[in-house]
């Protein structure tokens, strides 16, 4: 193939306007923010729904990105009980299990 220098009569490539190019030095604003600690979709857990027996039907379907992730309850420091939660799939149904464990005092 020939170089890009040759062109056909009447099909010359027009030159770019001067103002479309500049050369700024990259600033820090994009890098000022830290990346998120955890993927943000992990916030959509089912753990805050109440498990009351009188509840009408089941919880909403979980997004599959939160399955098989272990969550720990965020409570203030002096606590004797901690709650751990996980949502997993069994065949085509989902189960959210919450375990209450005692916290050993140091």
């Amino acid at each position, binding site marked *: 193939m020939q170089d890009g220098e040759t062109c056909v009569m009447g099909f010359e490539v027009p030159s770019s306007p001067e103002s479309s190019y500049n050369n700024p030095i990259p600033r820090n604003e994009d890098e000022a923010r830290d990346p998120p600690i955890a993927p943000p979709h992990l916030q959509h857990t089912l753990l805050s*729904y*109440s*498990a009351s027996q009188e509840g009408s039907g089941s919880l909403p379907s979980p997004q599959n990105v939160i399955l098989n992730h272990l969550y720990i309850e965020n409570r203030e420091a002096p606590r004797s009980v901690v709650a751990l939660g996980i949502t997993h799939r069994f065949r085509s149904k989902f*189960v959210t299990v919450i375990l209450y464990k005692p916290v050993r005092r140091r």
Partner: protein
Amino acid sequence: MFSSGMDASQDLSGTVGAVLIPTRFVWPHGGRRVFLTGSFTRWSDHLPMSPVEGCHTVFQAICNLTPGLHQYKFYVDGEWRHDENQPYVSGNYGVVNSLFLTGEPDPVPSVVSPGTPSRINMDVDNEHFRRVQVTLSGCSAPETALRISEADIELTRHQISNFLSASTSYDLLPDSGKVIVLDVNLPVKQAFHILYEQGIPVAPLLDFHSGQFVGMLSALDFILILRELGNCGSSEEELETHTISAWKAGKWQRYDQLDAHGRPLERRLVHAGPFDTLKDVAIKILQNEVATIPIIHSSSPDGSFPQLLHLASLSEILRCICRHFRHSSSSLPILQQPICNIPLGSWVPKIGEANRRPLAMLTPNASLGSALSLLVQARVSCIPIVDGNNSLLDTYSRSDITALAKDRAYAHVHLDEMKIHQALQIGQDSTSHGFSSAQKCHMCLRSDSLQKVMEQLSSPGVRRVIIVEAGSMRVEGIISLSDLFRLFMGWPGN
């Protein structure tokens, strides 16, 4: 196409007091409008036949015939036809089908008097149809109320047993469910609060070190703990350090005699797998006299790494039954019977029935301690609270004990001084579980059909229905979920 309430009055017996045999006539060769006529209709009345559900070329009608020889023919879309697959003869009307009924009576023969219209049962899929009794519509006076036949009960049991054996406990799982588990080393006090805050009556227990589920914590445990507190004067601090595992170990030593069959109580967790049939789950619940059992799946053969899937109860199984039979309720013949005619539940013994166990009831001024003792000793899960006339005011159930966790009321409660109505008041004041007493007590009348009571019992959270007299609200009896399932499984009642 046909409504189940069709009350065609088809009294076809000419003789008074004759034994009638319900007989099904089937026309399987299609058509749009099919009529049946025969010697039993004096060849003048045409009986409309109804298409069988799901198969529109098959029509059927059911008539009560005296024993003997009958002839019949079908009028299909304007022309007379006979069924060539059935015996037929040539007669005055051309070729007619003939049928000879032997006069053998059914086990409990029904005598139809000419004045009473008999309800034709237009039903399908009924193998045992010739044995089904014709029921009289319009109940007669209570003294001569019909007891339903054993055949009806057996048929109902058979149908329900077939359905339960064909479904597994996987069907009970909601699409996205939630279960709360407690570590067995939690202090009892924390566990109490968790059950109260989460609004659940029972929770499975996990031993974290072995990774196995070892038991369940229920309201009955708290009732026993509170009675211990009252008796031994233990303090609230002891509740804080006393772990569930220590409590369970002590309980098995102390309450070994509670088993009704004289055997030592089952130590191992009663549970079921997701592929067990609903029938097995129901039997396990009834045999172990519990309300819920966990459904646990273990992918490895030695049972390690168990996965807890769900807590199954009789209420959910009943909901499956109701959903399944909702549109074919005539296949369970006892469903339309009033509950007073069915051997079901515990009833207040009438005068003269001295050998019946009295129904446990209390007045609002009875002490909480007496209520708890009654719950434990009578092995019931609910006590109706009545006034002086035995009219129902409220109920106290085992699960009401968790209301005492509000504001740590259990710490300053003296069981023998607190009255039941005060304990119930604490429960109603709590805002997170605001049931009015009307919602709590589920009531029915003795004339309500079994189907209506079943629908009530299949609401979530309802475990028993109280039978009251209309108007005065006097308590006549209680029907619980386990009573209903004992009837379905054919177990001896009470």
